[in-house]
């Protein structure tokens, strides 16, 4: 990680004491130990451990990268390499409601971009940006495997199918 640009959130210079700043809650520590039982190597538990970390902290912070590296005997660079490869690991904090609009072909043909544009306009954000109150983040994502009920918007872990601009607006109103 040493050669990361100093402006990168993951640059070591920005973290005086990486790895010691955070730790799993006792409950998640137990879940982590249980994960290790399921695989013949420690490294194989990396993806589920990252999911656990994201569940606990909402994103994979640099501290979490160092912490997980220590837990699984992996170099921070290896952990970061995996974090940055996969789309679902957030490399910066996201809003309380993470709105992911599928715009791949089947959804696009059913007007997904209208929903996407409307969301960005309504919430006054650019794609990937979080609203200033920390409530919403909007992004465009690739096929979510729900093409028969297109367009689909994933809000945190849940799919909302057969969406329209109006339905999305109504859904937003329920998100406090």
């Amino acid at each position: 990680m040493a050669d990361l640009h100093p402006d990168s959130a993951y640059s070591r210079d920005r973290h005086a004491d990486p790895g010691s700043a955070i730790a799993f809650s006792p409950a998640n520590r137990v879940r982590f130990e249980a994960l290790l039982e399921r695989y013949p190597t420690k490294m194989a538990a990396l993806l589920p451990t990252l999911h656990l970390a994201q569940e606990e902290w909402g994103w994979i912070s640099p501290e979490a990268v160092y912490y997980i590296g220590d837990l699984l005997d992996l170099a921070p660079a290896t952990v970061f390499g995996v974090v940055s490869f996969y789309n679902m690991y957030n490399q910066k904090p996201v809003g309380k409601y993470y709105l992911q609009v599928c715009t791949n072909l089947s959804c696009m043909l059913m007007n997904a971009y209208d929903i996407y544009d409307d969301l960005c306009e309504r919430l006054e954000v650019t794609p990937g940006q979080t609203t200033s109150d920390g409530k919403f983040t909007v992004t465009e994502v690739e096929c979510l495997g729900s093409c028969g009920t297109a367009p689909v918007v994933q809000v945190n872990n849940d799919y909302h199918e057969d969406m329209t601009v109006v339905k999305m607006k109504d859904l937003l109103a329920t998100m406090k």
Partner: protein
Amino acid sequence: MKEKDGPMEPIKVLTANIDKPNSTSIDTYIESGGYEALKTALGMTQEAVIEVVKNSEMRGRGGAGFPTGMKWSFVPKNAPKPTYLLCNADESEPGTFKDRVIMEKDPHLLIEGMIISAFAIRSCPMSYIYIRGEFYYAATVLEKALAEARERGFLGKNILGSGFELDITVHRGAGAYICGEETGLIESLEGKRGQPRVKPPFPAVVGVFGGPTVVNNVETLACVPLIVKNGAEWFKGYGIPKNTGPKLYCVSGHVKKPGVYEFPMGVNLKELIYVHCGGILGDRPLKAVIPGGASAPMLLPDEIDLPLTFDAVMKAGSMLGSAGIIVLNDTACIVDSVWRLSKFFAHESCGQCTPCREGTNWMESILDRIERGEGKPHEHDLLLDMADNIGGKSLCALGDAAIGPVVSSIKKFRSEFEYHFTHGTCLPETKRYRRLGMVAAH
């Protein structure tokens, strides 16, 4: 298969349970004869189970259509390392949404299929379902079903007193299309970036954690209990020789009734769209059909009177793939549609092989430029030239997949590309499905 004397009727074989109340519960599954096939299989030899699957002529439902029984028979019997059965539930091919139905509505069908398959290939005590991370709900349904199966003794140390030991772990991916490629999936399961491996060695010899590995699609594994229970001949009763069995077809895009449809392998594509899916959205003319997920070359309206079998679709110059059928009516701009697919492949290229990493990104930029009306004449030929330098020049099939829609659309809709060059805009009947900022508005 009968000669056509009317539309083929949909069937309920793989989808027999999905509409039942509490379809995910183990009791519902057992009441409808579930886990009987497991008992039968455990009373057979491993070779006999492989033989019946071989005789069924089932071809893998993940996309490549490789015969499942043959895949199993490649696994060495006395390998020094444990053998693994992996279920590929990474369903990420745009247009495909069939495996999710099985996992969310009838998880025990998949679990029973996995136990039988693991028994047949002598898989070690742990087997994995690699499910795409976004399918959070499906993963929770599977976890619950696995707990039920453990409680009833269908999983564990001594399954139904046979001495066979197996447990199954649900392993969630984290958003990467490439992890649906079997060696990418294996790398990802090992905790790495999902970059496909050089083959050989093939996974059947050296796969996950260094052991022999079989990777099978959800729908493939879900067929296994049915084959064991009803026999290879019963399975072959659906479809035509070499393209056998019940099959789930996913239809999306511009049709009136999109969704998952089950038919014997070989339903007519035209009939599927016009009869079963209620025809084209808005009663508009059909423009193109993608028959097998984003990677499959497009078919023109006069090319769709064909049975949806692996061989027939290949003969028509495309592929059945994962049977994700995307229908486009005349409001879809071909350049816009292909741009969107190219954007997908550029985003999902794992970055390992230069032709694919660089090529997919360049194709996306050029298509975007053409769509914006800023393309230079002959850039469609440039795309074809690039396609020649991407296809077959990378480790896995993603590069080939990425050129499928590009090459087929330029060949079949050349004049629409040229219209963009000469007019700087899309055809008048097409709709703007995405905004292009200040540039070339309709």
